[in-house]
């Protein structure tokens, strides 16, 4: 029994059903294992791989620079977040802070954008809905996501990393035309 020391030599051959199960489980684990690196090379949705250190001040300057160059209007909401339409081929800078996503973006379907993500203060969770694309946003780091919207629509950016009492108010906007 498992509560007593095993008797004699317990390093015995394994029973047939346990052996078969072990092999099936191992094969399935190998499939799951290989899926990750194979998808990394061949797939179209992978976690981004480029990041740099950046200070909050420097990143904020880049954000405001983009807003000044490419603002096309405002969103007319409470904090009047600017609506910005960066051209394809130019970097996009999105700033997370307690408690807003700044600015609002207008992107074109089928174009690929380098979206730079950083935070001015705490951790935030970049969560595009309703497609459920989720990435971490870390203060002091610029995380570069190459994103290609594949459908038009009016999307929201939720925050899904706790960032204080205003966490639930942190909702941003991306429109894809």
């Amino acid at each position, binding site marked *: 029994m498992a509560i007593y*020391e095993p008797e004699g030599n317990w390093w015995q051959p394994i029973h047939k059903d346990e052996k078969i*199960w*072990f092999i099936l489980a191992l094969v399935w684990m190998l499939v799951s294992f290989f*899926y990750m690196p194979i998808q990394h090379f061949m797939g179209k949705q992978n976690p981004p791989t480029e990041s740099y250190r950046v200070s909050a001040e420097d990143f904020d300057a880049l954000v405001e620079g983009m807003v000044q160059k490419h603002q096309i209007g405002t969103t007319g909401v409470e904090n009047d977040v600017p609506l910005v339409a960066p051209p394809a081929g130019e970097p996009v800078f999105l700033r997370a802070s307690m408690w807003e996503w700044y600015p609002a973006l207008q992107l074109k379907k089928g174009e690929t954008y380098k979206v730079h993500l950083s935070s001015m203060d*705490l951790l935030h969770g970049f969560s595009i809905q309703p497609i*459920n694309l989720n990435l971490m946003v870390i203060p002091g780091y610029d995380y570069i996501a190459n994103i290609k919207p594949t459908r038009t629509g009016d999307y*929201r950016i939720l925050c899904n*990393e*706790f960032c204080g009492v205003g*966490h639930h108010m942190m909702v941003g906007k991306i429109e894809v035309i």
Partner: protein
Amino acid sequence: MSEMRTCDITGLKIDKTAETMVKLNITTAIIFLAVGGAAALLVLLTRWPAIHLLPVEWYYRWLTAHGLVALIVWILFFEIGLVYFGSAILLNTRIAAPLLAKVVYGMMLVGVSLVAVMVLIGKADVLFTSYVPLQANPLYYLGIVIAAVGMLLGFIHFFINVAVAKKEGKYKKTLPLVAFGIMAASIIGILTIAHGAAIYIPTFIWSLNDFLADQGMAPIIQNIDPEAYRLVWWGLGHPSQQINVCMMVAMWYMTAAFLFDAKPLSEKLCRTAFVLYILFINVASEHHLLVDPVLSTWHKIVNTSYVMHLAVLASMIHAFAVPAAMEAALRKKGYTNGLFEWLKKAPWGNPGFSAIFISIILFGFLGGITGVIFGTEQFSIIRHNTWAITGHFHGTVVAGTTIAFMGAAYQFIPIFFRRELILPAVAKIQPFVYGLGVMILSICMMAAGSFGVPRRHWDYNFSDAPFDYEFDPTVGIFMDLTGVGGVIATVGGAMFIVVTLGSIFAGKKIEK
């Protein structure tokens, strides 16, 4: 000199001090389960949009408390009790250092109490993970360190007891399998707490900055890099769950032995599986960091998939081996009709058995499957920080570990507490009620999360946000069902607390 008695149920020679420490820690654990469960109910009724019970600050405060008490305190006190069970009682020997056992208990209780006070007075609204740059009061971190040092000493005590037992010839070549599993857990425990020290001690020092400034002194640690914190913290966070998996599996084997005289089909396979746990889970923590910047893809993939899949293979071995041992034992007793007569005729009226079997099924189907899937880099993109993650880990640590520990507690009450269970009709159905509740909760959280519902989030309706967002109406149904599942689980949990504490303190004494 230690007093020994011979147990008339198991035949083990039980040292009185070891038995006292098992009883003390298990009872304390159950009391904390009640606290963690109460916190769970408050949090559940707040996330249920129709009720939205707590105001925003108290939600995050009770969520911090719920994470700490339900995930760490209830479980670690139970596991320190299992340390004495595995290293002294199973080896028919005494505790080598009774004073150390008391120090362990004292430090854990003091540390945990300090943490609880700091959280409830609002000085640690940082959630269980306390991600930097969020900062709590220094006493919060100090409480955690004190409790952790106590736990570390507890796991070290396992090895002191075993060394003394070996020297005194209490076992010849190798530990009984259940003790082997508890040993694997203790090894992982020591490595886990080493990670914990590596992150909590610097964070404690960093949290002193305001105090130092008030004294006119410069900070000792100016900043803690938030990504470095995440990496080291999860080096504590994930292996801490593997301690739980080892202990849960040890309880599975113990139940098979106690209730069925069952022997594992292959000791070689089971012991190797425990070794796989030790070797691989200490490294596999980066599945928490799959959508983080900084770490390279190769780092993430090797750490997460290469190593995690080997630990998962070990779980799949155990989840087969334990019921297979039970089936083999029951077939020997004559239940050979068809594929499942042994299962139908198994002692489902014994909550010690039913809880363990429910734990095996739910851990695998709910927690195990989703853990491997969400731990895949590409799937993490669509699940990270959604409520699906919360659903997953309620499938592992609640439907798996907690239900298994409930089953173990039912078995320990006659053996160590020498009491009969009160309200046996309640005890009989409790594992089913709790299991059903947690199953509904876990599945519905995962469903809501798959539609994007965030975790750790006070308001489903995003009040006061500049842009409106409404989830699909189907999601609202899952939110309601999660509430229903959670309430059923709370009832099941309350049934457990009443039966166990009632039996421990007022159950009919079993005379020899």
